[in-house]
């Protein structure tokens, strides 16, 4: 993964738990203290960081991954890549529909980028059927965190309903994503 993802892991830990906690996590995980956004890192770096964060913070991996996803959208993407965010979609549904395209277009800049794939099919005005494809296991809570952060960015509340793999033919995680204007 590119350094910008690991930057979110670092940022969240430092913001919420302090620099000393981050020092412990990254040193025990054998990861660098800081990351260069444009540099690719082995996926194992991210997995090791999350594993060590689970151990040090005493929180479930799902909660940590969800928080990382939300933090990435709200503190990294909107602050550093705001223009790109705005050009991808005008609201939550619009953004998600164009997410696959956006991921593919930035591959010119990030040649080693291996993003997940999303197929988004609107079922009605507040429900999207989302097919999530990824060769990286265990990151569904991270995706949920990203979508939750996106919802907050567009002032919408997002909820998830996961469908069983047996309900379709393709090797993806299928979910119904409901989004309504935040109260």
């Amino acid at each position, binding site marked *: 993964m590119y350094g910008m993802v690991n930057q979110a892991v670092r940022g969240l830990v430092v913001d919420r738990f302090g620099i000393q906690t981050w020092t412990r996590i990254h040193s025990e995980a054998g990861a660098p203290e800081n990351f260069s956004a444009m540099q690719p890192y082995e996926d194992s770096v991210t997995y090791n960081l999350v594993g060590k964060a689970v151990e040090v913070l005493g929180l479930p991996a799902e909660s940590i991954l969800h928080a990382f996803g939300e933090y990435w959208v709200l503190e990294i993407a909107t602050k550093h890549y705001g223009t790109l965010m705005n050009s991808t979609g005008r609201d939550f549904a619009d953004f998600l529909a164009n997410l696959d395209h956006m991921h593919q277009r930035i*591959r*010119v800049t990030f*040649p080693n980028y291996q993003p997940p794939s*999303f*197929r988004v*099919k609107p079922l009605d005005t507040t429900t999207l059927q989302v097919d999530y*494809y990824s060769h990286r296991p265990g990151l569904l809570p991270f995706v949920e965190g990203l979508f939750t952060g996106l919802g907050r960015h567009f002032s919408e509340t997002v909820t998830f309903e996961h469908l069983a793999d047996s309900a379709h033919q*393709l090797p993806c995680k299928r979910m119904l994503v409901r989004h309504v204007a935040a109260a």
Partner: protein
Amino acid sequence: MLPPRDPQLGHEVFSHILPFHLIWSAGGTLESVSASVRRLWGLREDEMPVIRLERPFSAKLNAAWFGELTGMVLTLSCQSAPSRPLRGEIIVLPDGRWLLCALPPMGRVADLEHAGLKLSDLPLHSGLGDALIAAEAAHVSLEESQAALHRLEKVNRSLSEVNAAFGRFVPRQFLEALGIKSPLDATLGTRATTQTAVLFADLRNFTSISERMETRDIFAFINRYLENVAPCIRNNDGFVVHYLGDGILALFQGHPGNALQAAAEMQAAIRKAVAGDLRTSGLPADFQFTLGIGLHFGRIEMGIVGESGRWDCSVISDTVNTAYRVEGLTKTFGAEVLFTGQFEERLPENASFKYRRLGRIRIKGRAEKVNIFESLDALPPSVGALRISSAQMFSEALAAFETGDMPAAALGFQRCLATDPSDVAAQHYLDRCTVDPESI
């Protein structure tokens, strides 16, 4: 999207607009592979490729999935040329056929050559060629930036090492006391006044012994000795201002208890080192290790002194002179650590330090006599225990001595010596019980 069989535009125009395309029948049979794709995949005119889907998942392409894959960005590869994939989207045409319009995925201009293409093979309207050139420029800039960053990191590391080396010559705390954050901010004449505890330590008789030693042996011994005692200062929030041969001048800007604790630890460290490997080659066998430490508290002037070609950090103060003189008294009283009344007044009331008053003593350079105290914590534990047990007797004898009741004083000091024959201070006073106390 224009259908490929549009009679007005024709196949040639369609291929110019979408050079990399494939078309399947509504039933999923591959009907057409464009010339650019054939060239990319190295296919003969009549050869139909075996196609694999690489993204969003890896499998042999199944036309039955087309409906579920529309709207997604797909990556396809040919079994005979797996390293030359195509990336694009599948669209359903008005007549029900499936059209894949794609381009080879590329990040650098060099990828063109790898795909067997020229820049002109990419349609101008796709913008991919422009993006590749822009990316090329960005990569060159990035590589230059990374090279500059590596050089900068190397310089930073070197500067950090220089700073660390500089800090070993000029203590960081000294500069901080002067309000200087960086050595570069130091100027000749920068000075500050502060109230602080001063420690002066000296290895008794070493100077005369060293005259019989080789220079290299002197350095080897002094460094080993300092290696044992100086950390006690640092560990108690003090810092060494100067090493003066075997002498040490240190300041403690926290409370004076730190200085007294450091002094006791220094004595313990030297005793431990003597029992260990402190004796280096060339040191006379008859040399007795006795470390004298004097402590005082008062105002000091710290600053940068010198001239344009040579600077030094310096402490100019009567407080330092007094600490030096008090250290000199350790020989007179057979003591290891002595401190003044001004120092004692600033010890925390609840501290558990054990010490005894040795009386008001005249110190060279000072008009008034100074109260001097002896630390009992700094003594070897067995000796310290004896001094503690005779402390009350010593105090009463000293009071008698100071009021001129010499018979009572002599009796008291004799009783102290009966308890602890090594009590040099008691012997010192006993010897003077017949003389005027004012001459002490």
